[in-house]
């Protein structure tokens, strides 16, 4: 199993930390992992993206241009990465602020209204974990037990009290995800 993922959105949405939690969780489950951020003169409100690979084998290139899954959190990222999903792959997006929804017919498309749900529940801080939950429902590449271990390892100890809320957000995401176009 090798899963090559791009997570892309605005800076400040927790794109990089979502990738980090996913990578840590994979590592805890004894998988090979890599986390490659787009780094640059980026700032809050600008775009941010990270490629995460989780694999049972040694990872060749951490730098990839085609993805099994694209997790898309704004229009710019959708425009940029829609065509980079491998045929038969997955595109998961949050419809908040998306005015041109994905159009491809050769991939599986899902949506998760995480921004809206996080606002309704007053859980804006764990928005990214709702998205992560939605992804894990579609592609269970790591099990829940290891998501908790990944959170323990990636969050500083002073934030460990937040872990139950994060796990609850993962559950929320799992039940919230909807299929838009399935092959």
């Amino acid at each position, binding site marked *: 199993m090798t899963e090559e993922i791009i997570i892309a959105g605005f800076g400040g949405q927790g794109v990089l930390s979502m990738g980090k939690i996913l990578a840590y969780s994979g*590592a805890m489950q004894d998988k090979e992992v890599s986390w490659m*951020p787009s*780094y640059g*003169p980026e700032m809050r409100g600008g775009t941010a993206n990270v490629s995460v690979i989780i694999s049972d084998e040694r990872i*060749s290139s*951490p730098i*990839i*241009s085609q993805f099994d899954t694209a997790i898309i959190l704004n229009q710019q990222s959708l425009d940029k990465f829609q065509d980079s999903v491998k045929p038969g792959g997955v595109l998961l997006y949050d419809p908040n602020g998306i005015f041109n929804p994905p159009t491809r017919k050769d991939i599986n498309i899902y949506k998760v209204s995480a921004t809206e749900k996080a606002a309704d529940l007053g859980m804006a801080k764990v928005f990214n974990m709702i998205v992560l939950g939605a992804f894990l429902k579609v592609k269970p590449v790591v099990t829940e037990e290891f998501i908790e271990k990944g959170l323990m390892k990636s969050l500083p100890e002073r934030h460990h009290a937040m872990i139950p809320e994060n796990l609850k957000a993962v559950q929320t995401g799992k039940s919230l995800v909807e299929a838009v176009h399935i092959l």
Partner: protein
Amino acid sequence: MAKELKLMKGNEAIAEAAIRSGCDGYFGYPITPQSEVMEHLMVEKPWETTGMVVLQAESETSSINMVYGGAGAGKKVMTSSSSPGISLMQEGLTYLAGAELPSLVVNVVRGGPGLGTIQPSQADYFQAVKGGGHGDYQMYVLAPASVQEMYDFVFKGWEIAFKYRNPVMILSDGAIGQVMEKLYVGDYVPRWTEEEVRKFAPWASMGKPADRDHNIITSLELDSAKQEKHNHKLQAKYREMEEKEVLFETINCEDAEYIFVAYGSSARIAQKAIQLGREKGIKVGLLRPITLFPFPKKQVAEFSKKVKGMLAVEMSAGQMVEDVRLAAEFRCPVEHFGRYGGIIPTPHEVLEALEEKIIKG
């Protein structure tokens, strides 16, 4: 040795390795894409645990001269920077080589020339292996291709630096510096005591006892006969490194008809291109130089007798390819494929280049 699993960026692995390998001092000046080296040191505060000094200098010129001073006293000292900062250090590097001072310099390369870009590049190969500073000198140059190697090569660097009394460079790039991967770290190696420095670096200038002459650290010798003799000594050292210290890796080469030659992050991309190529029935393998000086000339020569062609893949306009051609001596076609200025080639592009430039020939 107890092994502990971490998930770290390549830059952080350099800093973690410095602390765990008994480094005495790090001197640096921030620059993207390697700023996490000093950031991680500042988070870990090794001056409170191992006693290691971490100092932000006022410039790269200053950092490299602090390294000269510390190394002259037999200390394990290092600096890190990225391309424009390393250019500023070139005077210091040739002085370190001339004065035969063990030291470790990390270059997390970004695209140039000039201030260039902050994205990954491998266009500092010539500067690293052909001498960016003046005079006939060589650094031992290690090219890590993973976060684990970023860590391991700090330890390897000290070993070679003190064995040969020579500066060692870890030539990395923005991709390996920024990527986060699994890393296994070992136990802390204690810093050398004063007695150990006297034992392992008897040439060091650390106070003259009554029973020996002054130890003098200098790269200046106005008597040309003596300076030529000193050069002979340096050259003998470099030849010994070529004899004994070449490191390389081969992947999928057993049945290979074609070979990629690539180091650092290009070697990772080439591995993916090999997977894609083999799915199409193209028998291609990888020769990955781990040391860039000394370069694995013999291995290139061996392959040049067996394969139908080689493609040097590097994020430059064609630098390492010159060393591949010199070693292959026209026994097989050698071509170059590169993206540069901060652009990273895709595995598909690399495979296409092999098909276009070598297979179709």
